[in-house]
């Protein structure tokens, strides 16, 4: 989302740190995400009081307490609904939702898809650690099949969501992914999310070192990371690997395949990332181990009028046509009669 920038005194990270003790478990990926957000906020040109951070329930949802802006820690799964009301009532605010895989995709799944299709101009940061942390370790809607947890001692039989595919299915206008420990990348994505007009959905892969340690180790560990991550850049071919010698091309039909560059295969054979191509975004959203690297970056960014602006336009139009509301005229509308 974006908000009109205003001339204001230069803000710093300190201005956005609240006086509350941060109470996530030591080593939690949430610390890194908080640090990145606090790093970005002062640079957005938005006065501190114009920010509102809303959250649902879960570890991630404690986030608003740690940011010295307006904040609302709501109830499980409902932050998108509450944020919709806030943004519609107050289009001037920069509204952020912080949520997790359980909050957004399980108990709040309905509100998630509806805020996305309406394209309310808010930023949604979904921390995905593939586990329920606050309730102490049950499987989540993004946990892999076979996951052994307290509530699935014989392994989970639930097929997991691809969160970005869900967002794309709801016709989200901005869909992106980053990783807690990739601070620079994460900050870029957060900036892009802020600039986008409409609902920005950002999945942030996050480690839970208590209940799901190493959730994304195969993707974030230094030795393997270059082979396991595919950094998306609009207009650039899909290349990855430590030596940038691997790429993704379209194989038979619409099936992507990993190829090694050289031996007659050049960058020209590869798929070029296009943030406006819905088909590409969809198959990128399903891409991941063991056969593919995991894409990070902006999967989709398209323009569509945001809900609150469209509604505002109707209000303006009504006032133009009918004049400002006249209460006495309204109360006396229709057939009236006078009693002497």
């Amino acid at each position, binding site marked *: 989302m974006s908000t009109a920038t205003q001339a204001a005194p230069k803000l710093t990270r300190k201005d956005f740190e609240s006086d509350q003790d941060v109470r996530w478990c030591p080593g939690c990926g949430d610390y890194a995400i908080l640090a990145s957000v606090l790093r970005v906020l002062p640079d957005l040109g938005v006065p*501190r009081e114009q920010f509102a951070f809303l959250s649902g329930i879960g570890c991630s949802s404690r986030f608003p307490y740690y940011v010295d802006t307006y904040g609302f820690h709501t109830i499980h799964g409902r932050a998108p609904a509450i944020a919709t009301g806030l943004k519609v009532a107050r289009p001037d605010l920069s509204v952020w939702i912080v949520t997790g895989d359980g909050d957004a995709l399980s108990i709040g799944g309905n509100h998630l898809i509806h805020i996305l299709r309406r394209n309310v101009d808010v930023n949604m940061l979904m921390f995905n650690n593939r586990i329920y942390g606050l309730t102490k370790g049950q499987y989540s809607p993004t946990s892999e099949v076979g996951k052994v947890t307290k509530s699935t001692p014989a392994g989970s039989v639930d097929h997991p969501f691809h969160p970005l595919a869900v967002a794309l299915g709801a016709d989200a206008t901005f869909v992106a992914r980053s990783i807690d420990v990739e601070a620079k990348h994460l900050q870029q994505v957060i900036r892009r999310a802020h600039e986008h007009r409409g609902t920005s959905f950002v999945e942030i892969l996050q480690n839970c070192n208590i209940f799901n340690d190493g959730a994304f180790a195969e993707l974030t560990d230094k030795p393997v990371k270059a082979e396991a991550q595919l950094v998306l850049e609009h207009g650039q071919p899909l290349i990855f690997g430590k030596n940038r010698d691997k790429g993704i091309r379209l194989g038979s039909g619409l099936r992507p395949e990993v190829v090694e560059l050289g031996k007659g295969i050049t960058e020209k054979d590869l798929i070029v990332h296009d943030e406006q191509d819905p088909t590409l975004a969809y198959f990128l959203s399903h891409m991941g181990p063991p056969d593919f690297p995991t894409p990070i970056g902006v999967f989709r960014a398209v323009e569509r009028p945001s809900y609150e602006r469209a509604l505002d336009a109707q209000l303006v139009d009504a006032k133009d046509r009918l004049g400002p*509301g006249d209460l006495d005229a309204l109360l006396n509308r229709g057939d009236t009669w006078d*009693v002497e």
Partner: protein
Amino acid sequence: MSPTDLGGGAAAEAASKAAKAIETRDGVVVRFAGDSGDGMQLVGTQFTIESALAGNDLGTLPDFPAEIRAPAGSLAGVSGFQLNFSSREVFTPGDSCDVLVAMNPAALKVNIDEGSLKPGGMLIVDKETFTDQNLRKAEYQVSPLTDGSLDGFDLFAIDISKLTSTALLDSGLSNKQVLRCKNFLALGLMSWLFQRPIEPTIRWIEQKFKKAPELLEANKRVLQAGYNFGETTELFHTAYEVRPAKIAAGRYRNVTGNTATALGLVAAAKCADLPMFLGSYPITPASDILHELSSYKHFGIRTFQAEDEIAAVGAALGAAFGGALGVTTTSGPGVCLKSETIGLAVAVELPLVIADIQRGSPSTGLPTKTEQADLMLAMYGRHGECPLPILACATPADCFETVFEAVRIAIQYMTPVILLSDGYIANGAEPWLVPREADLPKIEVEFRTDPEGYQPYQRDPETLTRRWVIPGTPGLEHRIGGIEREDVTGNVCYHPMNHEHMVRTRDRKISGITRDIPASVVDGASQGDVLLVGWGSTYGSISAAVKELVAAGESVGHLHLRYLNPLPPDLGDVLKRFRRVIVPEMNLGQLIKLLRAEYLVDASGLNKVQGRPFKVSEIVAGVRKVLEELT
């Protein structure tokens, strides 16, 4: 009966201005009944407007099935609209009707079986619909028009369908289109019979069918044909006149409860100088409020049809956080879904209005029928100690004032408020003395902007209310949420003593609203044998019953509660002034439990849960039984 017995029994008074005799009646109850596709609600509504413009006091009862179109001609598909119009004060739509217009055999069967028509009452039927097939659908073995079973009524079997098609002979409309106009024939005929002005209906037709000139012309022609038929046919020798009621001077309009609720919200938002945000999910019988408010965008009202009931209230609460008047409208099943968010609103102490237009329960229950069984839900339907104010509307017009008061309390006390209305008054109509904006009280709203010494849960020492501070205010950034907070600072706090302090503070804040509740007004006897304590839409039936009992010399009073939580501070004293207390409710006894618990009063219940309002006679009978016990 003969038509001269019609109405309230006043002496007949012939007038000579028309070719036929005109007799004056105190009041008449008319019921239109037909297939749910026959346009009975429309005809009833128009006849109501005509009667309102004739200056009568009135009360209506729309009564329709939940199915949009039940099988044509079936008993399940019968839709009715009852109107009581009078030159005297009207409290109810009438226990039973003086005139029944039945558009098909099923409508006749349902209403005769239920005793809707008074013995000797006037019965008008569309003769041509009494075909073998329709009779079978209505489960008649033989035609009631010929078997003598209707001998106790004054039967007029009229060719309504044929008169309609004759009037539209050269209209070029299809047979189906022609027959869809026949409700206007019935309306025209009734308008003549009771000397109602048809101009408002003509205006309505002109507006409604603006884009379909052939239907506009057809409906107008049929309406006029019905009127002329009454005047010229030899079937009717007399028309009836019901003179204007003597009511307070001023400008009136006809209003349903849902319209009055919508208008009350618009007015309250204006008087509070706040933008209104309505989050709602369509549900019978509340949807009309959403429809109505959606068309008031020029008043700055934002309406949001949410994905579900939970999102509807959530968005309203989010808007309240942003400084708007947050409102959600629903019925009982929706309140169940909203409970968690209402609890959050109690915890974060933000203003919010939840309008529950009650209906038959439990579960889907009787969506189009009335009931008042959500009082306990409003009172206790959240987890934990979660008090909030509850107000109930007594009549259609009363919805305006009550919802206005609900808004005032929500803002002044920074609390969610539940407004209880129900299907009966939501859809029912009555004349309303239209208020003027200049006469409405202002609702004070002051967002705090001074950062000096600000603490999010600092409270007003008297009302215990925290201040409303909205995002965008520099220097007052703060966080709120559902976790228990430390009083004053608003920091998350699990301390045992703080929790008890907060639970008690929230409770005292709500119970302290008694300071705003005006002294109770008891109608009828101010002390004596029996006090009837009612709430909500039973007002009309109880009022009429008490009037009747007092006129008969009984010592009976009526107290009707608008404030259900907290209860009026003088209620305990009022209860003590009577030997017995009766609580009529359209449930199995909910207010009575609160009264017993609060005042240890040995009240007795008078309960009806049939999806329809009390008849006056039922209340009178219930009181008489208690009076007999007293002697």
